[in-house]
């Protein structure tokens, strides 16, 4: 606020704006602590994670996203989904200057991988469920879960 003290009368009109700038950076307090609304006010992605100030910083995000991306290849698409969910602000504003380009690559990879895996798995599950015995014949009875559970006694522990 040095300029304010130097030019008090001339800045009387700019003071509110100058003073408003730091206050506009304060995060909004919403029940979900969604920082996207505050970012909308700012127009920039201040925090890379959906938790805002409680989440990771920009520096820590990269190894985190990389680890999740690599672990997701162990037949764990849910991990990719969690990765995308956690770094949702970066996915929404991919052209912001705050995020690392590698981070964006990992997130897009995770998103594409999750969508692909879900498409394949859901098409198989829907075919199995809707097709039923008409489509699969005898094999359907062998594959359906409640028969498998009965056969191996999986619910007998409780």
């Amino acid at each position: 606020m040095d300029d304010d003290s130097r030019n008090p009368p001339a800045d009387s009109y700019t003071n509110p704006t100058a003073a408003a700038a730091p206050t506009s950076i304060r995060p909004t307090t919403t029940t979900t602590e969604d920082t996207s609304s505050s970012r909308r006010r700012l127009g920039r992605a201040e925090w890379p994670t959906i938790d805002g100030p409680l989440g990771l910083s920009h520096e820590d995000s990269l190894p985190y996203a990389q680890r999740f991306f690599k672990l997701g290849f162990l037949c764990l698409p849910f991990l990719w989904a969690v990765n995308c969910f956690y770094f949702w602000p970066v996915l929404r504003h991919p052209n912001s200057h705050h995020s690392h380009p590698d981070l964006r690559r990992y997130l897009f990879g995770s998103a594409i991988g999750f969508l692909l895996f879900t498409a394949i798995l859901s098409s198989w599950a829907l075919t199995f469920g809707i097709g039923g015995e008409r489509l699969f014949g005898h094999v359907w009875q062998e594959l359906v879960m409640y028969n498998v559970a009965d056969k191996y006694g999986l619910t007998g522990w409780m």
Partner: protein
Amino acid sequence: MEENPRPRTILETCGEEIIRIVTPVSICMLSVVILVSILNGGSSSSGDLPISSMATIAYTENSSDSIWDKLKGALLNSLVFVAVVTAVTFLLVLLFYLGCTKFLKYYMGFSAFLVLGFMGGEISLLLIQSFSFPVDCITFAIVLFNFTVVGVLAVFMSKMALFVTQAYLVVIGVLVAYWFTLLPEWTTWVLLVAMALYDLAAVLLPGGPLRLLVELAMSREEDIPALVYEARPVINDSGPSGGAVQRRVWREGRGRPVMNENEGIRSNTRTVLASGENERDYVNAEEGRADELAVPLIQHVNIRMNSTEDNVPSDDLVLEGIGLGSSGAIKLGLGDFIFYSVLVGRAAMYDYMTVYACYLAIIAGLGITLMLLAFYRKALPALPVSILLGVLFYLLTRLLLEVFVVQCSMNLLMF
């Protein structure tokens, strides 16, 4: 020159925080009530369940026994259970004192794996069977595997999406609580009261294991590796601090118990006591893990579930307590979630009227505990007030209110 931010009303600050802890507790209770209604709907109040676990080691309830016998048996069971929980908690304190924090963390992760994988798998299988849902084993295996692994990571890693961690903690609470509702009726109620009294003693008495744990953690400035549900802190609008979260740490100097979470560590008694039950061991382990997960206080409570048909004792150490985290968020142990849900689940096995009464009693008890927390600024047990109020309301509803409401409805006075 800054524009004065609109002063936050007490409804926004305190109310927001209370809502953030009451919502997950309510979701947990609702889920357990739904599970109980769906899965136990057939055999409603049959107390002859063939499970044997630590909690029924002394006496297996038979519905044809007299009331006095049932009471004696239930007391014996609860005593054994509380003794095991105490022993495991002291073991936990010893391990923490010796600095085996990594081992405890791995144990927690392992418990989470057992609960989510095996208990979660079993309950979803029961649901699939009850609805005849046409899902095939490959899809089921992949979904369960994903669910379990992400859950273990959520419990294990410190920096994970807060929503995902909270959701998984609630799911773990639901699974363990459902398992507890399978115990015989008298045993469950006496066990609840016994755990409430144990919690009171363990947290407030100078020699109590939970108090020792909290003081150890405070003196070392470490976090207890336990399962604790931490609500999001309410961020105040203060301009110049930018995005920093305001810290409201209620520390009253070193050596005094911090407000932060009372972590209850439930050790898997199975792990400790389990004799070589080969195929049941891992089931026990699941139970054990639950112990670590849930801290009935605002700390971690590890609940171990023993679900085996053999007499494998599983100790569930649950630590219960409520406290404040370092960022000012309220922390509630998972054990509290579990025992609240067990109470409501048991009430659901009788009728929905008791569910409403017990729910209100538990929420009122939780509110009272939060007020005491704000007043005393110490780690407090979250079980006693709620459980005692809940049991009282259950008895009053079942004995007095039900007769009144049924008579009114039959005479078309009130529906």
